[in-house]
């Protein structure tokens, strides 16, 4: 599990918005899904976190009763690396998508089948916890095409 590190709330990341304006982060999640995995113990998950607020937040960890471990991964140069935290920029979004950053579910209780739903809780440095229902879609589900 990613540690809730980083005492400072200094914004780095690519978005570049400096968090002036609104008082705090206002987060919402959409486009969440998990492609039906091949593995019986491991899966990837994708979602988009919108921030309508004027302050950035950081996704610091993710938990789920269905998985022994959930980590946030960044994909860099064909390899996945565990990320300590990912920034949700002010008036921006954090996109976890296939081929890029994603959630990684490890030590699954059982193989995830299409049609099931997995409940995860996203933990943020400022906004606390946010519960999200992630539907398990077809292995080849493509959010751009909707099938």
């Amino acid at each position, binding site marked *: 599990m990613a540690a809730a590190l980083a005492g400072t709330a200094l914004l780095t990341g690519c978005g570049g918005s400096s968090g002036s304006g609104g008082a705090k982060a206002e987060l919402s999640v959409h486009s969440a899904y998990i492609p039906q995995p*091949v593995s019986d113990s491991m899966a990837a998950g994708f979602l988009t976190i919108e921030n309508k607020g004027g302050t950035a937040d950081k996704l610091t960890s993710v938990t789920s009763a269905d998985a022994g471990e959930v980590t946030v991964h960044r994909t860099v140069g064909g390899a996945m690396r*565990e990320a300590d935290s990912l920034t949700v920029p002010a008036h921006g*979004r954090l996109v*976890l998508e296939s081929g*890029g950053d994603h959630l990684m579910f490890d030590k699954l209780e059982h193989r995830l089948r299409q049609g099931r739903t997995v409940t995860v809780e996203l933990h943020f440095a400022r906004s606390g916890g946010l519960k999200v229902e992630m539907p398990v879609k077809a292995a080849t589900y493509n959010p751009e095409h909707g099938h």
Partner: protein
Amino acid sequence: MRNKTFTAAALLVAATMTLSACGSGDDSKKPVAVVSEDTSRKAATVLDKPFEKPDLVLTDTHGKKYDLRKETAGHPTLVYFGYTHCPDVCPLTMNNIAVAVKDLPKAERDDLRVVFVTTDPARDTPAELGKWLKMINSEFIGLTGDFATIQAGARTLGISIEPTAKDKNGKLVSYHGTQVVAFSPKTDAGYVLYGEDATVDDYTKDLPEIVKGETP
């Protein structure tokens, strides 16, 4: 028919770059390098200088010696380098191909060879590979063996992989290739590449051409 042909050099640049991880916005789906004036989205990249099929002799999922050139000679062949502990791109790529293959007539399906070469041979034993591929398509061929051999084979296709290594938390990090290479049954040369954003529809549309060695 309109074909996009790029020089191998320009292609390699595009193919070996992966998405940068600055996870913002929708535009990360766009290609990293634009190498053609043709703006219509097309998954296939046709090479004007095809790759020679790598001279790989590895072990298949039954634990038997598998000579890639010998076993796939004269057959349309798709080759992908990945690993089974990969949650996202590797299973998606193989599943996309598996769904598209189902649409081929049986004779062409039987003729086609789909080869998954592991980039993580220490974890991907023949048995592990076999178990994983069976969930996708039991006809697909899984190869494992000496990492240096696999890496050298991948390199001849412009695919760069590194050995599995531990990250700072002690977790194993492996690498996958960023493209599927299609080899022609006519020439046995690798003449078309698919990036990791190629969809089921792309493969479904192109495989009937690929199995004949024609340009998609």
